[in-house]
């Protein structure tokens, strides 16, 4: 009972971190149309800058905020120098470039900090005790922060004009231009939003894993891809749900089978989804997560 409950909380926390990262990835995919393999390194950069800034004496919250902002600056810099010049060449050159970007960023971190794990400055909270059941406090907070982030993304996409223009550009870029929208600016804004979310994801990832290495984000990206694919890539709401399923799957696998099978599980999900429902559980047809209130004729 105790193990079950704790595993559930850990699963929600891991799912929350995956969800944050997957939603950020999905946002940029929707507008730019390519799968960004360099996205995991944004999480790594955020985790390491947060680590460095706390080492330098900053508190965790200001360090995390600054780390997130720095991550966003790095992401926009990379997008401008590496991705934008190739934007008209289609998704494949961009995808391959992003793999190169991943290796460069990852190894820059390795040059700076070495390959051995560093302790992420997560708060050491004692678990809550509720009638004999221990509830891990840190994991609960991680899940709540992830939830607030999801809510923020939802409000941005559904209830602000900026979010609607982002969705419009993702839905039909030519028509967005024909509606008077400067789509290059929207792409830039989307990079900023997506990388800020990646920054938050990196901080949460560091906090949930405790130790960070230069490849922490790259390895995590596999789980993020699995979640995004499960939800239907390009679908923010599908990604959120896919992430929770993957997170729960990973933690239950670790608790009841073995932690060594995490990536086997993720790969298994990817293969199964591609075989059975290439559009994802929520892709195509059920594609829009918010049901129409008017009903269909």
């Amino acid at each position, binding site marked *: 009972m105790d193990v079950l409950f704790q595993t559930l909380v850990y699963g929600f926390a891991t799912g929350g971190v995956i969800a944050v990262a997957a939603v950020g990835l999905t946002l940029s995919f929707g507008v730019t149309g390519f799968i960004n393999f360099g996205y995991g390194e944004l999480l790594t950069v955020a985790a390491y800058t947060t680590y460095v800034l706390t080492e330098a004496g900053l508190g965790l919250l200001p360090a995390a905020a600054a780390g997130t902002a720095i991550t966003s600056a790095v992401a926009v810099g990379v997008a401008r120098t590496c991705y934008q010049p190739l934007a008209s060449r289609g998704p494949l050159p961009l995808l391959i470039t992003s793999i190169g970007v991943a290796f460069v960023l990852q190894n820059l971190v390795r040059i700076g900090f070495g390959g051995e794990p560093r302790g992420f400055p997560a708060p050491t909270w004692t678990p809550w005790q509720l009638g004999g059941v221990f509830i891990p406090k840190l994991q609960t907070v991680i899940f709540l922060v992830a939830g607030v982030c999801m809510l923020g993304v939802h409000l941005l996409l559904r209830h602000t004009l900026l979010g609607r223009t982002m969705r419009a550009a993702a839905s*039909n870029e030519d*028509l*967005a231009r024909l509606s008077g929208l400067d789509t290059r600016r929207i792409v830039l804004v989307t990079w900023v939003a997506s990388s800020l979310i990646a920054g938050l994801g990196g901080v949460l990832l560091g906090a949930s894993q405790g130790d960070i290495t230069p490849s922490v984000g790259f390895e995590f990206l596999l789980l993020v891809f699995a979640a995004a694919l499960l939800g239907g890539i390009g679908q923010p709401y599908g990604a959120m749900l896919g992430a929770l399923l993957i997170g729960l799957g990973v933690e239950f696998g670790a608790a009841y089978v073995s932690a060594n099978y995490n990536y086997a599980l993720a790969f298994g999900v990817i293969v199964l989804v591609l075989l059975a429902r290439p559009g994802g559980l929520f892709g195509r047809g059920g594609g829009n997560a918010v049901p*129409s209130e008017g*009903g*269909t004729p």
Partner: protein
Amino acid sequence: MGVAKQPLLEVAELEAGYGDLRILRGVSLAVGRGERVLVFGPNGSGKSTLLKAISGILRPSAGSVRLAGSDVAGRPAHRIVRSGLSYVPQTGNIFPDLTVEENLEVGAATARRGYRERRDAAMDLFPTLAERRRQVAGTLSGGERQLVALGRALMLDPGVLLLDEPAAALSAAMAEQVFDHVLTVNRERGVAILLVEQNVLKALEIVQRGYLLETGTVRLAGPVGELRASEAVRGAYLGSSPDGPPTTP
């Protein structure tokens, strides 16, 4: 003379294409304020390319596009639309993932002042838009989608509307309705219409003048009466017209 002294839209010697492929070889045409003008011609004659080049989605390689006197050729599409020219492509003319109302709102995103009035006016013009306002546009029927496309295109109060085969892929009855809607937009709003249409017989009933485009140039131009009387048009486009026996081209 159908053309007013200073046309609202004046295209001169426009050339455009894709890579080395030249499609428009110097097209000139004019649309006056509130006028309804048809562009027709065989497949591959450059009708759609013409609309793309005028609207800025495709950058013209030569020639001019004067909109109320100022040349907009070569400007990006999102600027041209703000100068009063809206374009409804044949396909991909709605945002399928957005609701009907969001489609309208995005259409007005660059001119928020007076958006509610323009939205309400569009919904008065086409009550279906109001009935379906919260429905995701991709789930609408073909005819309803055309209404969303028209509504979105009206959100920036254009002086001229470019329509690429709005009735294609619709049933005859639905096509009839769409043509009625186009007339409504023109009569109630005074919006000039530049229409590309394959169904020439039908289209000539709702326009005042027309241009016959062939291999990227204007082969023939004139008011509807002249076009109907022309051998070239009767032979190839009005074969089934009641006022003449079917002729083989």
